[in-house]
């Protein structure tokens, strides 16, 4: 998100999901779309039926790769090199959109100069992808009438996550593939409302609608609305900073809402230590998760079916959610819990409904200003929606008019992952999801039918590696990184290349996040879930 915001001025999907049907070329990188975003995959399948082409780059072969015009398996953590290689080809073949670059972007020259001493051969050497394949990828993307990029955590969960995203933005601007129907840069968001949570300022540095917390008009506006003289103007802590803050005795209390960091965060053993150390741990969730088990106080929240409100999905679409059943037991909607606690702390909140809160959001958030409950009947509205009459915005940055003014090129070079394989830890390991489960399985593993589909974790391994280790499908192996070790069953598959193993992270019993690397991107602070080095032995 930080990467796209830096390049375009907005960090969300630039297109509506349905527009993908109209793309001539869809470049999917770091997204297991059919498994993780099946309804986005639907649109991609339709694009193929409409004569469009799909190109897929992923170190692990996924389902949608079978439908690709070209699928390439690049080395783990070499996205920037791959993208720079593609852009080298585009410049060499003069396929760039000079008019678009001249009229709508800045810092192109610096970007171009930085690429000068990078050759396709170098890209090929770093990524393990042939020069011919890089050339085909580049031409298929650059020569399309309308091309879209679709990416997900395979791009962002790296120490170079922001660089990866900025490189994708470079690629789109270089070819003018942004701000058009069916053409743009599209990060797919996971949870139904993760976009909404970010829109609402559930980030350390912004209020709603990405208005900065630092001193300025937004800070004043919020202080006034909430009837206080001033609001703190310092930027808060990110998750890794909170954990290290606990270690340094700077953070005394932690209130976790709807997150399960014991399973979802890298270096899980270390997370557990921090959560055990913090003086007061409050966890608000709908189930007693492994994280909630460590809490001093558990506050029972409500599920989607028990509450009213809105969700904002991956395509910036705000829709209503309506209560179908009353909250179970002592549980309460999150807003009521927050309001109760605020009142006990002495800051009075007297909201009577989510609608009242939404009206306040609209009054303080320019991109939501035109949205109100009465306009959310039916399919909802896509922000920005600045006025009551505004129909919402299916795609951003129309006609090259970027949210930030001009699109900004960034000169970026390849950096290796934080941890690389060596003699002691000779295997690359990456993590991801399976079709039946979502994230730490808090919800999906409580569903009988989904649990039936996939009951336990497993490690995907190439047949050649299985042979060397003398293990067969279903055998147990011991896998260790510098941070921990786990036992897991293996699945033998050609989906991963020799030397690379993959494991889904939904399963607390074989928690692969005990092994993952907590090193994080310097800007977005996203940990490098997607790359670490491990050793394997027969168990």
């Amino acid at each position, binding site marked *: 998100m930080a990467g796209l915001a830096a390049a375009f001025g907005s960090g969300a999907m630039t297109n509506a999901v349905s527009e993908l049907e109209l793309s001539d070329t869809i470049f999917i990188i770091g997204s297991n779309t059919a498994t993780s975003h099946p309804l986005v995959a639907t649109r991609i399948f339709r694009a193929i039926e409409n004569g469009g082409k799909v190109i897929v780059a992923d170190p692990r072969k996924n389902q949608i790769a079978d439908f690709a015009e070209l699928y390439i398996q690049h080395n783990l953590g070499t996205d920037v090199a791959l993208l720079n290689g593609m852009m080298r080809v585009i410049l060499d073949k003069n396929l760039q959109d000079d008019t678009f670059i001249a009229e709508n972007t800045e810092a192109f020259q610096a970007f171009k100069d930085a690429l000068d001493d990078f050759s396709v051969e170098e890209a090929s050497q770093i990524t393990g992808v042939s020069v011919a394949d890089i050339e085909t990828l580049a031409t298929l993307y650059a020569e399309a009438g309308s091309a879209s990029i679709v990416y997900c955590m395979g791009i962002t969960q790296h120490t170079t996550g922001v660089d990866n995203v900025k490189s994708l933005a470079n690629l789109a601007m270089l070819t003018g593939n942004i701000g058009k129907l069916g053409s743009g840069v599209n990060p797919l968001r996971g949870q139904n409302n993760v976009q909404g949570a970010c829109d609402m300022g559930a980030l350390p540095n912004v209020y709603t609608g990405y208005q900065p917390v630092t001193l300025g008009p937004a800070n004043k506006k919020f202080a006034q609305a909430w009837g206080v003289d001033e609001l703190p103007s310092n930027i808060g802590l990110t998750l890794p900073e909170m954990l290290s803050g606990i270690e340094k005795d700077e953070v005394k209390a932690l209130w976790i809402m709807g997150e399960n960091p014991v399973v979802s965060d890298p270096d899980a053993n270390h997370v557990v230590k921090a959560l055990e150390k913090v003086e007061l741990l409050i966890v608000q969730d709908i189930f007693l998760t492994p994280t909630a088990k460590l809490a001093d106080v558990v506050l029972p929240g409500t599920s989607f079916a028990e509450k009213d409100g809105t969700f904002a999905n991956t395509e910036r679409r705000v829709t209503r959610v309506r209560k179908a059943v009353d909250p179970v037991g002592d549980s309460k909607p999150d807003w009521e819990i927050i309001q109760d606690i605020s009142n006990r702390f002495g800051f009075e909140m007297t909201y009577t409904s989510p609608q009242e809160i939404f009206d306040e959001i609209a009054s303080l958030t320019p991109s939501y200003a035109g949205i109100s409950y009465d306009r959310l009947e039916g399919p909802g509205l896509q922000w920005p929606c600045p006025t009551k009459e505004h129909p919402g915005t299916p795609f951003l940055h129309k006609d090259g008019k970027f949210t930030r003014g001009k699109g900004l090129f960034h000169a970026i070079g390849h950096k290796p992952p934080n941890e690389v394989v060596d003699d002691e830890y000779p295997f690359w390991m990456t993590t991801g999801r*399976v079709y039946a489960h979502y994230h730490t399985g808090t919800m999906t593993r409580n569903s009988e039918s989904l649990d039936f589909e996939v009951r336990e974790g497993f490690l995907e391994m190439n047949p050649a590696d299985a042979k060397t280790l003398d293990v067969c499908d279903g055998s147990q192996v011991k896998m260790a990184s510098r941070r921990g070790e786990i036992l897991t069953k293996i699945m033998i598959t050609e989906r991963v290349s020799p030397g690379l193993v993959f494991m889904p992270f939904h399963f607390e019993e074989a928690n692969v996040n005990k092994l993952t690397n907590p090193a994080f991107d310097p800007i977005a602070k996203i940990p490098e879930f997607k790359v670490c080095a491990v050793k394997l032995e027969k168990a």
Partner: protein
Amino acid sequence: MIDRVKEKINELLSEGSVKGVVALVTANGHVAPCLFQKGDDLDTLCLGDTEKSGDARYPLNRVLCTIARQYPDDVFGVLVRGCDERGLYGLYRLNQLEPDKVVPIGIPCPESLAQACECKKPYPDDIVAGEKFEGISQQGVEDMDNKDLSTRFSFWMDQFSKCVKCYGCRNICPMCFCRECSLECEDLVSKGDLPVDIPVFHLTRAMHMADRCIDCGLCEEACPSDIPLRLLYKKTAEIMNTEFGFTSGINKNEKSPLSLMGPAPEK
């Protein structure tokens, strides 16, 4: 048409001949199934028209089955199109509903919908209101039959490879009601990975639906991967018809050839 339908439902509810009527409602800008009871406002009742006539359909019989299981002694009305009525006949035959506990409220489908469905009988036997259009020939099946084997084979394998094993096709189907689903039987279909076992997953379902599918097309509408499931089941139905002279749900007192022992019945 809708006024006549509302009138009929009002009649049934106020004279007390039914406990409730399963129909469709427009609420919050969406169409959804709804149980209307005596005293309920029928203003919001709708026939499922959003952009086109009849483009928002639901397996109302499935909803009815759920309710009927809870209230076995009560009589319920249900809004039916041609396919839904075929479904009722099938569900009577399969002992999922009792004919004397169901009052169908039949509406015919407009020509555009009949064309889109390539529907053999786009109207129920009993029509409350509206004009009926004649059946449409099965062009889609014929076109597919005219392709050579290898084209057909690769077409279907490509289509099946898109499956994300969401079970949407099964979950929406008004004729799927088994307690133990063969799609979850590990001897037939392995679990735990995508793509699903192809073509086994889809053919297992097609076989299991052979004497049940009433060609409503809801499965295909629900499939997030746009797999042309309906075409597959239409072909299965055609085989059932050529071999046994049987069409699921066409006659009220039908028997399924798959549940009879002995030689094939006369065509």
